[in-house]
């Protein structure tokens, strides 16, 4: 039998990185004996190594907790742990739609951060009841009263009866469980006999089970063996397995309204499942799908090339395997004169890019050259056509271009007062337009309209460095706007290096060009001849450096005992050369492609 709606509570946890979301989830699981102490490990829900390492959640995870409340009733609590990063904003919004309430976890010594804001607004949009939870109240620096006030000021929700906890020590956890039962609403409605409507919240690939689909039943009842249909894709499957997470999989024969669980149905690829899709029965199914579905759209593009060109097929294999489990990442083959065969890949954002790149390098052991990340430019031609430009190398003949538009974002940055000046300068340097500047206590909240192009590369790194890590940052896409944009080429030894081509604002081209040439001069090792390094727009050189020729590189002592050693050294040198790319007669180390674009200070 399914649990009655009144005894179900579905919720998520909204928090900034490091504010204790995963630890709180661990405590809830532990204090309800959902997992035995013996099987408990930290950050139970973050399954991937990269998730654990970076302290971020990429995939939605879920756990069903049985809880006997102080009123003596047995409740089922379903926690969906959502990805917290801006790159996965759409996934977050879907997860939020699958639950009715949120715990807003805020570090009582740090206060509200930009990411918290973005996610809490998503929760408010999803009509959530929100229970504020102030974590780390045991720390000497904790200021629960001040932070509660800040929550009221900045977010506008009542924080007077916030739960005061320490997820680390377990303090206040029983209060949180009671608050979930008493202050969060049960699922609003749901008829067990209505046509099935289940929301596809997330999906991932399991090597033993195939694709596992996380679902929330809105209406109707889903049973093992049922024939189901995905309303967006039209695909049909038979349900092989049905169950819930505790957090390990536990089989169930049926899931009813309000319940959250999983199904497997011999689905081969994650690509075949769309987050936000509605699942219904093949026969006597629902007429209208759940609202709010939208396919995910990559916004950041870059080229991934194997360092060792003989690993191209391995790279293809790795990318295809990863794509099976990540529908939001797109790829197509790309050939570069300089880098050979590779893939142009699209990502939801920079974190997404880094995660995919790290996984290829780590899980598939392929060294990669990553070219400069680019956004999608809208290139309007004089003949009226509009071209979506994903790669500066594909830039059409400038004489035929009428104008170019670039994507802009609205960025929200929360920063302690002391660093405000640095943040404003950084945003100004990146062609930002200030939209708003307000204060919440000693923290400033600035809102900027920025070109996405200026943010995709190293903005976040620079922000962290100028604010010593105290700033938090979030953004949303704001549409396209025209600006004076040009393609800047880099010529090394008079040969254009397509992988180093970038789109820049005309007014900043000289500065960027100079900076890149200087960087490359340091990044490229001396050769046996001097090498001019130039930046050019069209045919016009706008910056130039010269890398002088190698002058001294000879072993001082080489006698009978050194032949073997020298030979090994030579082999090592040759192997090192293989890690470089040849442009004409110049070898460029792989790291140069990314390092050259970083702007320091």
């Amino acid at each position, binding site marked *: 039998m399914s649990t009655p709606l009144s005894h179900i509570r579905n919720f998520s946890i909204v928090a900034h990185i490091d504010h204790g979301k995963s630890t709180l989830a661990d405590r809830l699981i532990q204090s309800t004996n959902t997992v035995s102490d013996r099987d408990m490990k930290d950050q139970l829900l973050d399954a991937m190594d990269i998730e654990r390492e970076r302290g971020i959640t990429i995939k939605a995870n879920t756990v069903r907790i049985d809880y006997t409340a102080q009123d003596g009733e047995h409740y089922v609590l379903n926690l969906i742990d959502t990805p917290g990063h801006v790159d996965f904003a759409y996934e977050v919004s879907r997860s939020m739609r699958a639950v009715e309430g949120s715990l807003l976890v805020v570090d009582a010594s740090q206060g509200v951060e930009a990411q918290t804001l973005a996610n809490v607004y998503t929760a408010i949009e999803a009509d959530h009841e929100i229970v504020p939870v102030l974590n780390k109240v045991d720390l000497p620096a904790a200021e629960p009263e001040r932070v509660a006030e800040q929550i009221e000021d900045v977010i506008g929700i009542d924080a007077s009866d916030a739960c005061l906890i320490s997820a680390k020590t377990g303090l206040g956890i029983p209060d949180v469980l009671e608050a979930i039962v008493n202050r969060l609403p049960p699922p609003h409605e749901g008829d067990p006999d209505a046509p099935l409507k289940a929301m596809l919240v997330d999906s991932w690939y399991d090597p033993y089970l195939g694709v596992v689909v996380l679902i929330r039943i809105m209406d109707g009842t889903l049973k093992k063996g049922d024939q189901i249909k995905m309303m967006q894709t039209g695909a049909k499957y038979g349900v092989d397995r049905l169950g819930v997470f505790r957090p390990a999989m536990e089989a169930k024969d049926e899931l009813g309204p309000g319940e959250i669980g999983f199904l497997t149905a011999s689905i081969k690829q994650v690509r075949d499942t769309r987050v936000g899709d509605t699942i219904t029965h093949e026969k006597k199914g629902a007429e209208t799908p759940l609202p709010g579905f939208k396919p995910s759209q990559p916004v950041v593009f870059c080229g991934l090339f194997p360092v060792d060109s003989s690993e191209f097929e391995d790279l293809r294999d790795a990318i295809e395997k990863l794509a099976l489990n990540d529908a939001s990442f797109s790829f197509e083959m790309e050939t570069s004169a300089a880098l050979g065969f590779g893939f142009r890949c699209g990502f939801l954002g920079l974190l997404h890019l880094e995660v995919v790149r790290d996984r290829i390098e780590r899980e598939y052991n392929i060294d990669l050259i990553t070219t400069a990340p680019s956004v999608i430019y809208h290139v309007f031609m004089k003949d009226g056509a509009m071209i979506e430009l994903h790669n500066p190398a594909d830039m059409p003949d400038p004489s035929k271009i009428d104008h170019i538009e670039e994507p802009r974002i609205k960025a929200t940055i929360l920063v302690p007062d002391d660093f405000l000046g640095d943040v404003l300068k950084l945003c100004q340097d990146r062609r930002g337009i200030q939209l708003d500047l307000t204060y919440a206590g000693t923290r400033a909240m600035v809102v900027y309209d920025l070109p996405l192009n200026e943010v995709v590369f190293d903005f976040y790194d620079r922000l962290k460095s100028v604010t010593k890590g105290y700033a938090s940052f979030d953004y949303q896409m704001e549409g396209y706007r025209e600006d004076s944009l040009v393609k800047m080429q880099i010529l090394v030894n008079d040969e254009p290096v397509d992988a180093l081509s970038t789109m820049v604002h005309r007014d900043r081209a000289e500065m960027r060009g100079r900076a890149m040439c200087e960087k490359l001069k340091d990044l490229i090792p001396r050769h*046996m001849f001097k090498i001019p390094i130039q930046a050019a727009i069209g045919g016009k050189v706008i910056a130039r450096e010269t890398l002088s020729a190698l002058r*001294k590189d000879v072993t001082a002592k080489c006698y009978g005992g050194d032949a073997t050693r020298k030979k090994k050294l030579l082999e090592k040198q040759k192997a090192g050369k293989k890690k470089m790319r040849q442009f004409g007669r110049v070898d460029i180390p792989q790291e140069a492609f990314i390092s050259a674009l970083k702007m320091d200070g």
Partner: protein
Amino acid sequence: MPLRNSWPAALGEDWRYGGFGLYVHWPFCEAKCPYCDFNSHVAAHVDQERWAKALAAEINRVGALTEGRVLNSVFFGGGTPSLMEPATVDTVLKAAQAAWPWANDIEISLEANPRSVEADRFRGFADAGVNRVSLGVQSLRDADLKRLGRLHDAREARAAFDTARAVFDRVSFDLIYARQDQSLTDWEAELTEAMQMAVDHLSLYQLTIEPGTAFWDRAQRGRLRGLPGEDLASDMYQVTQDVTAAHGFSAYEVSNHAKPRAESRHNLVYWRYGDYAGVGPGAHGRLSLEGRKYATVGWQAPGKWLAATEAGSGDENVEKVPPHEQGIEQILMGLRLLEGISVQRLQEVNAGAIDAGGLQELLDLGFVGMDGDRLIATETGRPVLNAVIEKLIAS
């Protein structure tokens, strides 16, 4: 005699282009120098008689494999071979005389520290047969000698040098340049002084910070300051060429300068890629046996080598050097010489050793030149020889 049926005769006899020498390694020092990455050990007591026997036994063993060859040279290296008792040297040389017929003009060199205690042994070494010494003077500046961890001062070195000249037919010495805080004019002045002392041979090494040395550790910790950058080091190298040339010394090898016919014949065996027997801890050898070339290396640790030798063989490892690698070694060693390498000889062992495109590029850039059959690194090519060789050798 080894059978030569596995390879064409020309290949089996390739070593004859370079001759045949014997290297004897004496691994002990009184103190470890902070720049030295050679196999050297500081030992309180060395049983010289036992070591003499062991070295002689190894010579007998290798001699049996290479019977009938004419020995062109012997070199005592280290470590500090001038710490050997003359009797030890004598035992070793007697064994070498029993093992091979000696060339009439055999060169027998010994590396020596320029200290009075060791100079007292010079006469004994000469009596045992040593006819050339190479003195590790390293610097003529006391402050620099201290920084290099040397136990002698400049005055003592000069005195030892005078003793050596009186005792031996041939005397060479080493200097190290590109030292900490050394300026170009400092080095030019010091080298010019050295040229007044020099007889007909000098080894002039750029200070190199090698892994496994005290200097390396210091450099890693950022505590080794004042080393010249690439440009100054390059200028120092150039001054070295100019000053030695002005005194009639030819830079017959990257770091070795000599008057005509005063070249180190033993070292030429290495650079011309001949055969050499390596005897002693960590000593390397190259031996052509039955048409194949073998690389041998003795056990590094003195105690281990001694025990292994007494049990039959001091070699830790003996492996074949395939023709492909022989070609590479010929290039690595031979291009260090002013005379360069014979392309025809190279092609006999490895026709594909040289990358045609790389060669053409190097010829175009003027880093190498051809003189008849000989491929030679030019004056501009030699200071960047590592890069030249990397480009030249086919992958």
